[in-house]
């Protein structure tokens, strides 16, 4: 039970919930907001839309996946708020960027036609468009333990020489299907291809982000409450067991046609 007096107020910014939120990414925002409350903090969820002023306080940022048309709709706004985002990232603000926003947080996206679209450069990664998609269940080892999700991307992402990945692929494709890395992590910024959405079933990752956000918001160390994660643990471990038993990243297609 959360205590009655709040430990502080955390501002959670959801970047482009209309344009870049197509694979249940809203679930990450719902999860973060609910867990912040369960840990005894107040939360203010701020939806950032293209053209809007970026909020003065931003303790935790979430961005999701979109379609090509969605990405083109946010490019101009990203150019406007890019310096602010780079400053927040360098200063240790926790962020979780999934799929399309992960790619846009990198150096560049090179389309299959060879056109280079610059990214924010917060993560030292470069993504190339491909004709085949990497789709299926995925299991990672991370510093927060095993993480499970679902990947669905055609971009193949390569990490720069000093760039740490988010995790190591145990089942699935990951960044590029070649080097067993998945995602990227710099300071408290996590980029990843994992849908699921990633946070509800992997609460240790959610709480790591919340801990950093709480410290930034209050100036004190994170003061967590006991949160019952038995449902999340059951959902995660069951799915990991299934995927490990299959041994590949692709769920077996049921013959429909």
């Amino acid at each position: 039970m959360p205590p009655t007096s709040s430990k502080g107020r955390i501002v959670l910014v959801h970047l482009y919930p209309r344009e870049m939120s197509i694979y249940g990414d809203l679930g990450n925002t719902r999860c973060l907001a609910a867990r912040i409350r369960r840990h005894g903090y107040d939360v203010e969820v701020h939806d950032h839309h293209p053209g809007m002023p970026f909020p003065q306080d931003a303790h935790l940022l979430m961005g999701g996946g979109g379609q090509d048309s969605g990405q083109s709709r946010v490019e101009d706004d990203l150019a406007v708020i890019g310096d602010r985002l780079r400053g927040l990232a360098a200063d240790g603000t926790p962020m979780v960027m999934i799929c399309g926003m992960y790619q846009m947080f990198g150096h560049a996206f090179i389309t299959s036609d060879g056109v280079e679209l610059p990214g924010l450069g917060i993560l030292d990664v470069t993504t190339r468009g491909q004709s085949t998609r990497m789709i299926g269940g995925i299991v990672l080892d991370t510093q927060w333990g095993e993480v499970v999700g679902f990947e669905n991307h055609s971009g193949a992402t390569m990490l720069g020489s000093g760039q740490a990945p988010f995790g190591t692929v145990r089942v699935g494709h990951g960044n590029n299907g070649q080097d067993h890395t998945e995602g990227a992590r710099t300071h408290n910024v996590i980029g990843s291809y994992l849908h699921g959405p990633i946070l509800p079933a992997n609460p240790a990752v959610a709480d790591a982000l919340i801990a950093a956000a709480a410290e930034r918001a209050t100036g004190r160390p994170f003061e967590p409450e006991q949160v019952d994660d038995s449902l999340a643990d059951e959902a995660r471990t069951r799915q990991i067991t299934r995927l490990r038993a299959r041994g590949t990243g692709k769920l077996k297609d049921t013959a429909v046609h």
Partner: protein
Amino acid sequence: MLRTSAAIIAGKTLRYAARLRGGGSALPGLVAERVDPQILARTLASVPGGIVVVTGTNGKTTTTKMLAAIIAAHGKHVFTNPTGSNFTRGVLSAMLGEIGVGGRLQADVAVLELDEWHALQFAKLVTPTHSLLLNVARDQLDRFAEIDTTAKLLATLAGQTSQVVVLNRDDSFVFRIAEGLSGKEIRYFGVDPEIADQVPALNEADVRFEDAATPPPPTTDDGLLHTVNTRDFAIRFGPAEQVGPLALRQRGLAAMVNATAATTMARAVLGADFRTDLTEAALRTVTAPFGRGEVIDVDGHPLELVLVKNPAGFTVALSTYGAEPVATMIAINDDYADGQDVSWLYDVSFASLREHGVAMTSGVRAYDMALRLDYDEVLVEQIEPDLAGALDGFLAAYRGQPTRIFCTYTAMMALRKLLAARFGLAGFAQEGE
């Protein structure tokens, strides 16, 4: 001709064998297709009254059933693929039951439900005379990858249609298709502006953007839905012509919109032969397709089986059934036909279930569903991934009460089999396979 006959005989034999075995509606079509790839085109070419394709993300099966019923009520012999086998081979399989070895299809009109991708494959073989494009929503993105891609598939189909394209005027992904069309008649269906505030519940506003495009003002060939109350409605074509008021057997606004779409298309196909009284009679009697709110009698009490397969569909189902809360079970599988990425559950709000809670979650992703409900503060009484155990536990706990199960496709097929075995419903599990 010889090749066609051989293909038909091969397919017919297999269709008979498959029926004896009790399932598998696409396999006979596959065999016939292998033997003679042109069989579909050649056979359908003999249908004089039109080849009508119904496609879109949600409501295909319901709309196809309504459209076929309306046209049949006008005395026409309709060939349709009523089994929900909405791929080209399913059409071929259904056809094999209707044709003689000579290859003639005994039908005046063909009404075919095809999913967005297979509609295009079909159009490569056979030119549709009429296309009815219902809506575009996120559905199994792991298959079609992106919603924009789906919209493009529909636009291509519309371009390949020879006579009439009927578009949804309330879905900007669909009505914008008119911009690129020429040389064919375009008609629209939609809801009256008086209930336009209910459209967001049917569409997904979050993936649509404000743009200047609006559909042209309705003409007397465009069907508009007027609701009288939650069950009764009318479809108006200008000020002088009206179908209804009437009530469908199937509940909810989505079914009324489907009826409006079907009626608008039936009027285009039938032309001067179209009659409002025959249409009303057909719509009043058409029953819900399998899993679309179909009601099963469990010891004298209704069990409603509701198929859910994408955020828009689940949201509509919750608002349709939310007014009459009963004991609820939710069964989520993640096979190919269900959608392997269960992220979509987070794009549905389950707040309407908060007051009464959910009695049971089941299916391969039973715990993911329970976790999703937990984040909406919906209490879950029991979690049992095994469908048979869950069904028995659920029905035992709520014996003598009305019940409802929301389920994904493969969970529904498994539950139908179990229900058929438990309650001795002859032929019940076969439909739709």
